[in-house]
């Protein structure tokens, strides 16, 4: 599979996953704020929840795939940064998103 085409596919596929997750996440955030839930009350609901752990775990993986590919395109087209350098930098950015995201999910769900 040619790399540019594989990245195109990965970005579209991750967008397909992200679209409903983002909508649910935003709805959830608005619901939690309007409901006046405190941080402790939110954590009480998420701690130990396998469901929320899977939901946000999937979110993190999809975002870690999606964002670096888009950023790579922007850097290549606007700054002309091509070759191995940009690929390594964006791979590192993807790993950073993944690590920070999993760390956050783990803290919120305790799993």
């Amino acid at each position: 599979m040619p790399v540019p085409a594989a990245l195109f596919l990965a970005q579209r596929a991750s967008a397909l996953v992200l679209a409903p997750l983002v909508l649910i996440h935003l709805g959830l955030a608005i619901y939690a704020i309007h409901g006046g839930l405190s941080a402790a009350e939110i954590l009480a609901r998420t701690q130990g929840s396998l469901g929320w752990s899977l939901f946000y775990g999937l979110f993190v993986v999809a975002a870690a795939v999606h964002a670096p590919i888009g950023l790579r395109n922007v850097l290549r087209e606007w700054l002309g940064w091509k070759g191995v350098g940009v690929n390594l930098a964006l791979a590192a950015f993807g790993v950073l998103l993944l690590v920070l995201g999993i760390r956050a999910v783990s803290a919120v769900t305790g799993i």
Partner: protein
Amino acid sequence: MSDTQDTLQVRVWRGGEDGEFQAFAVPRREHQTVLDVVTYIQRELDPTLAYRFACRVGMCGSCGMTVNGRPRWTCRTHVDTATGGSAVLELEPLRSLPVIRDLAADMTPFFEKWQAAQGRATGTRTRADDTHRIDPASPRRQAADAAIECINCGVCYAACDVVASDPDYLGPAALNRAWTLMNDDREGDRKGVLAAAMAGGGCHSCHSHGSCTEHCPVELNPSAGVAGLKRLSLLAMVGGKV
């Protein structure tokens, strides 16, 4: 010559990449095309003006220029259309291509990318074989027919924002040709054509801005062709064929 309604003020790009505009005053004529204006300047005012044309009837695709900021085929563009009724016409060579001199752009990168996109038919039969029967009503043939009348003028290439920012991008015309081959039952190397379209600088670089379709003088829709290639490419990847 004074600036009256009978006179057109024309600013013409002179020199190479670092040239400058030169002003000419050209008599206004009814139904005058932009190419008529350029020809008048070369014949009557300055014989050293370099430009390119051949058929004058919108078939050869050689007279593309930037007219008042837009890429156009100059032989079929009326001055009124290009100027929007004002008395000033500004002419430059096609963008995103090297300038040879004055209004003549070097089309070499355009045709090199055409080849890089494998924009050429690969036959499967010899003259000893029977004619390949094609059903004109088949959906694939209709898709090919809708895209086949490209005159290689380079207007879409000069209009494309991605071509302007990404020197590797093959451009709308070359990919449109690849799309016609993908829909041509006589094509013997569809796999190769799709591989070329999927490589770096291929169909996945397109941002779907649609400038190619907006500016194509023969009203083709290269943007739809590139989208078709993206679709074929995704299907091939998901189906494990590449």
